[in-house]
């Protein structure tokens, strides 16, 4: 039953370009990016119990790295994978500093590190182009020399690339959270001391979780430049870090699908509210208040009744 629904969804997404306009397609891509971004974020919050407010930093690293590569060597695959890799390395390094702290300290640290990356993107002009950012990034063809070469200029084609990456990443994520590693992280979330006293090195596993989250943020980021053909510092700003937080909260922290559903809701809500009022922030704020005060389970768990891990 559940499998069938999933299959249906995938097919639907696969056929989408046939019956929607460019703009809807464009928004769908953005929803997929935010989903990846939020999934990674929720590995930290929902599965490891760490609230990071600096994920945009790693998103930005992925985006800038990918952009740099595409500008140097126009190969989509190279750009995306390269972006992910760099983001992974950076998150590993900053992770070493951050995971020594927990709870609120961790949140503030990640926030500050994120802003550090932001000011770096702003300042290191030779590398990042300053506030004008990197412009004219080509949507390079998807190419494996000697094997195949697909032109990416029409957005439909790129849409499929993003879709494939998303499906793979989501499947991978599912495996991770349902593996011994996933169980271990949940153990740390539930009781740090207990976890330590069954022989788990809490720090190491926090670091692993942090790095994976960074990789997912990096992937989301790396998929952006080919779409927009520009990268600018705001992608690293903390207000961008807040998006996965809101999406996850919206969808449900302790559910697998929460961040994905939340991401979709977040964009749809925003896009709709923005058309009717300039005050969409206040609406968002009220939604956050209501969720925190009343519906901590998030949307998804409402369907499940109790928001258990699924």
């Amino acid at each position, binding site marked *: 039953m559940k499998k069938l629904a999933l299959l249906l969804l995938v097919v639907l997404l696969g056929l989408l370009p046939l019956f929607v306009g460019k703009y809807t397609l464009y928004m769908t891509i953005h929803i997929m990016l935010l989903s990846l971004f939020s999934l990674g974020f929720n590995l930290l919050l929902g599965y490891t119990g760490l609230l990071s407010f600096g994920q945009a930093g790693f998103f930005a690293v992925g985006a800038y790295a990918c952009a740099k590569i595409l500008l140097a060597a126009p190969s989509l695959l190279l750009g995306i994978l390269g972006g992910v890799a760099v983001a992974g390395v950076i998150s590993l390094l900053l992770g070493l500093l951050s995971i020594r702290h927990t709870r609120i300290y961790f949140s503030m640290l990640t926030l500050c590190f994120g802003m550090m990356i932001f000011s770096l993107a702003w300042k290191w002009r030779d590398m990042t182009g300053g506030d004008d950012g990197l412009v004219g990034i080509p949507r390079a063809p998807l190419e494996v020399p000697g094997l195949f070469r697909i032109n990416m200029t029409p957005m439909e084609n790129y849409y499929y690339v993003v879709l494939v990456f998303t499906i793979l990443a989501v499947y991978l994520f599912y*495996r991770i959270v349902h593996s*011994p590693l996933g169980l271990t992280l*949940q153990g740390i979330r539930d009781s740090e001391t*207990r976890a330590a006293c069954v022989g788990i090195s*809490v720090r190491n596993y926090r670091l692993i979780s942090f790095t994976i989250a960074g990789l997912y943020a990096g992937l989301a980021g790396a998929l952006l430049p080919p779409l927009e053909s520009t990268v600018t510092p705001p992608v690293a700003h903390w207000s961008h870090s807040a998006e996965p937080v809101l999406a996850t909260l919206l969808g449900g922290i302790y559910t697998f699908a929460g961040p994905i559903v939340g991401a979709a809701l977040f964009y749809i809500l925003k896009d709709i509210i923005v058309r009717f009022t300039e005050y969409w922030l206040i609406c968002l704020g009220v939604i956050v208040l209501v969720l925190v005060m009343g519906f901590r389970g998030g949307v998804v768990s409402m369907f499940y009744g109790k928001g258990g891990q699924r």
Partner: protein
Amino acid sequence: MKPIIRTEDLGKYFGEMAAVHAVNLNVQQGLFTSVIGPNGAGKTTLINLLSGYLLPDTGRIFFRDTEITRWEPHRRVKIGISRSFQVMNIFPRMTVFQNILLAVLSRLNKNSNPFSSLKSQKAAVEEAEKILNEVWLWKEKDHPASQISHGDQRLLELGIAVATDPQLCFLDEPSSGMNPIERIKVLELVKKLAAERKTTFVIVEHDMDVVFSLSDRIVVMNRGKILAEGKPDEIRGNQEVRDIYLGEEI
């Protein structure tokens, strides 16, 4: 006989207060040892020091011949030291089965496996199920740990503690908050486990009857120091011990 764990004038001080002071403890392999003493005697602090939950201010700790004074808890678990907590400490959001499984996986060093599904961890699953039976939680298997009865939660914690297959296991008031019947049940279980698994148990317990019936050896603490140490009979006969328990029937 060789001590399984041994301390040299161990000390832990909170400001002025000496929680543990100049403690030279010797726990013999295979002897069921109880630590007793009035509230605030430093029993829990001692266990926290031995399990690495706290770091001592003075002194050294040896597990067999290795010094482990400043080891982190998870390393001590790896060489065979395990513990339960006085205040309930389980994984509330996970199912009872997962609680045990996690501990077993950790023992088999399988935690970091990121892709294989839990079911595919045959060895771990079997062992976890075995333990579930040993601690009488089979029927609760798939309930979230936070939903089962308090008594069962204590059993679960015991299960987690032994799931790492320790040589030495500290139990901090394993029967706290239980009614007399449950209490007997749990301590019987502990004894059974000790026999079957060849695990050396060190427990902190208030119920004197249980302590004296169960223990091969008793350590009496008071004001952070070891007051007396010996076989149950010796302790019964000890005047100082009687004094601190204000002639309470022991």
